[in-house]
């Protein structure tokens, strides 16, 4: 008898601990109160360490910065057209080389100081200095005088200090006007001004950015609400001083950082957050997990298979076309989940996108075999590099590998590496074989897909591709001030790239999100799904 009571005693004790915990729990964020327009947005990433849009090019930081800072111009979610926010007008000269930006009157920073042209000029100069080591430095490389602030440094060497502190192409005209002179004409520059990496910082922040890394002073619709400590949630409250268009409906927003994406998803299911990204592991189940609260959005993310231009074996365009024709894009898209096969180099939500731009992107095994034979076959195994830090890297690599093996009879091998190692090997032209790459635009222009990836000097030229003819056509597009004519030229450049095929288009991925019954996120063909602009029930 004593043995039994012993077990019972302990079990009862445990039950008591558990039930007392149950009592302690009382409604997570207290959603559903009448007229309450607050929401909690989960971000599946490590907590931010600072808020400085000029030193931020990753999604988590940009999301938060978007609430606190307002851009010069933005894309209208309904029409897809560019509308002014802080800018009153953005005008190019005849050649599209010098641009004049006039600011609206009456805008201030959240510390009360008026927002002036000087704030933009000084903030941009600060970021354009390589020694500041801010991530959006590269944006200013188009402006005249960039080189003087960023002297060429050989790989591994310490950068030389420079006494130049300002971009020669950047001039303040009066309190609300400044001009930007570019190195070469660039017809799309106006569109790029919606990039948040160009946000202005007020003078006190510019003087000592580190002191303000956790107490940003912005010019956007929200300001920091109370203290923000390391590792903590970021709480924002509506700021009445924002007079721009496109103001969000929320009065309070909490950004909660949960590094493990599956845990963030579970937090949503438990009802403690209002908005969460669907992680790759839940793509098959999210519709049943939250039957009334999911949205998917056309993403601007395009995904490619990248061929190495430095490897002689892949030189022949016919071989590249054969590879492309041997890939069953629909099967690949099904495997990825929430994806559509792509037959062009540009994302579908961009002006100038053509659904059938690629002539060699159908699934045609017979033609693929013919082209491979005409190219003289392929010697040795095709090596496919995949990212080991991505859960799906190996699966996708094997899917592509199997298609090449079965349809073209090629020998295939796989190499798993850290993402940064693949990038480094590709940058130094030492990567052996194929790899995957992806691209999402910074500003909604067909040009933002072509210049970075296909121009010989493009900063995201993954394949080491170089074709002077394409560079020439791109430059023509850049100097064409008529936007229709510019798009025609860019499409011509896309055709050249598809003919040479340094990247094989694979699929465009959609993103999925869950949201609580309290909010309805904004879904736009042009700007994607945005929790920040949710409407409230």
């Amino acid at each position, binding site marked *: 008898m004593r*043995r039994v009571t*012993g*077990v019972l005693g*302990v079990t009862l004790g445990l039950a008591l*601990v*558990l039930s007392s*915990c*149950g009592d*302690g*729990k009382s409604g*997570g964020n207290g959603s559903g109160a009448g007229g309450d327009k607050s929401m909690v947005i989960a971000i599946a990433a490590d*907590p931010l*360490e*600072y808020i400085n849009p000029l*030193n931020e*090019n990753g999604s988590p930081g940009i999301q938060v910065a978007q609430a606190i800072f307002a851009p010069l111009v933005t894309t209208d979610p309904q029409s897809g057209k560019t509308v002014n926010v802080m800018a009153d007008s953005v005008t190019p000269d005849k050649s599209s080389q010098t641009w004049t930006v006039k600011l609206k009157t009456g805008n201030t920073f959240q510390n009360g100081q008026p927002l002036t042209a000087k704030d933009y000029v000084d903030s941009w100069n600060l970021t354009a200095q*390589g*020694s*500041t*080591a*801010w*991530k959006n*430095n*590269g944006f200013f490389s188009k402006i005249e005088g960039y080189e003087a602030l*960023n*002297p060429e*440094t050989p790989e*591994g*060497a*310490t*950068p030389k200090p420079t006494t130049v502190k300002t971009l020669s192409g950047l001039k303040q005209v009066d309190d609300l006007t400044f001009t930007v002179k570019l190195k070469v004409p660039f017809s799309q520059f106006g569109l790029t001004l919606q990039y948040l990496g160009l946000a202005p910082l007020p003078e006190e922040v510019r003087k000592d950015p580190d002191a303000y*890394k956790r107490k940003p002073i912005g010019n956007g619709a929200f300001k920091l609400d109370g203290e923000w*400590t*390391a*590792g903590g949630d970021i709480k924002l409250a509506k700021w009445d001083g924002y007079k721009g268009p496109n103001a969000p409906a929320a009065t309070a927003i909490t950004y*909660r950082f*949960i*590094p*493990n994406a*599956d*845990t963030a998803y*579970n*937090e949503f299911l*438990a*009802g*403690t957050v209002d908005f969460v990204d669907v992680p790759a592991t839940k793509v098959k189940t999210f519709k049943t997990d939250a039957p009334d609260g999911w949205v998917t959005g056309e993403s601007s993310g395009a995904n490619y298979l990248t061929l190495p231009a430095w490897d002689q074996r892949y030189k022949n365009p016919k071989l590249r076309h054969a590879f492309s024709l041997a890939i069953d894009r629909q099967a690949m898209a099904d495997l990825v989940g929430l994806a559509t096969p792509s037959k062009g180099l540009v994302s579908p939500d961009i002006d100038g996108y053509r659904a059938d731009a690629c002539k060699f992107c159908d699934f045609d095994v017979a033609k693929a075999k013919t082209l491979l034979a005409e190219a003289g076959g392929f010697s040795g195994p095709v090596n496919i590099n995949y990212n080991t*830090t991505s859960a799906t890297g190996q699966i996708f690599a094997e899917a592509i590998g199997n298609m090449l093996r079965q349809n073209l009879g090629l020998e295939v091998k796989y190499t798993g*590496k*850290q*993402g*940064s*190692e693949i*990038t*480094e090997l590709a940058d130094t032209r030492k990567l052996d074989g194929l790899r995957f790459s*992806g*691209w*999402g635009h910074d500003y909604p222009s067909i040009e933002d897909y072509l210049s*970075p990836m296909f121009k010989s000097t493009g*900063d*995201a030229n993954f394949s080491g591709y170089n074709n002077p003819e394409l560079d020439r056509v791109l430059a023509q597009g850049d100097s064409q001030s008529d936007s229709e004519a510019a798009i025609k030229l860019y499409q011509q450049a896309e055709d050249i790239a598809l003919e040479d095929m340094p990247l094989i288009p694979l699929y465009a991925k959609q993103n999925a999100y869950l949201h609580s019954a309290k909010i309805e996120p904004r879904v736009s063909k042009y700007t994607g799904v945005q929790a920040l602009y949710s409407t409230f029930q």
Partner: protein
Amino acid sequence: MTRFVLRRALAAVPIGVIVTLGVFALVFAMPGDPLRELAGDKPIPAAVLAAKRAQFHLDQPFIVQYLLSMKDILTGNFGTTFAGADIADQLRLRIPVTLKLTLLANAFQWTFGLLFGIYAGFKRNGLVDRSLLLVTLVLLAVPGLVAYFAAQYVFGVELKWFPVSGIREGFPHAYLLPALVIGLLGFAGLARLMRTSIVETVNADFVKTARAKGLGEQRVLWRHILPNAMLPIITFIGIDLAGMFGGAIITESIFNLPGLGQFMFQAIKLKEGGVVVLLSTLAFVSFIVINLIVDVLYGLFDPRARNV
């Protein structure tokens, strides 16, 4: 005793150098470029890369990087991570989190492990003993990762007894679920060891002698069996406590507890040598201290060990 402690502390210095140097070399040898990893898919301009490399001494040879790192640690000048986090700030935030989690988990593990182990060992082949064998067998077979996510889903998402993740609800509430799961998973080993140790001691000659002298059962248990049976347990608990740090990497990630384990995971992911070495040094120092305490306790339980 003071001499013993001093001797141990001094002996730890060369070991510490070897351990930190080894860890640093391992991180250094890892493939990939931390600054590119930080940048994600977006390209970073050469000028920024060069400036960041110089800022974090990544342009220096291995041994210089190591020495600079050690200098920073020893002078308490921790600096920032590659991502811009103030390391001293992070330690202030994270050390209490890991300590609370570890101590609570160990409290569960020790309470249940010792209670069940002693009871089962003393009443061998009884109901408790047999149930314990079965339960521990099941627990030992469950992978931690599965148990953590299952517990989170059942008790956090479905039953809502505990918060799903994070430390917003404070101590002990936010820590109870992860600590219970760690405690339960660790309890199996401890309970089995305790039981075996008791069973072995119960049958020892000195216990028979004590019983033959006519001592009461309680006195035999508390004065003769337990002190002797506890010796292997103390060693186990010491090693276990020191090993909690490694286990915390997974638990803290899944339950989103901003502790040292999560910090270590981020640092390894970003190939952040300085932080990995700093955290390894912390782990190493706590390992040395715990070992010292174990040895002192050993001396208290077993007089023979005092002069070793």
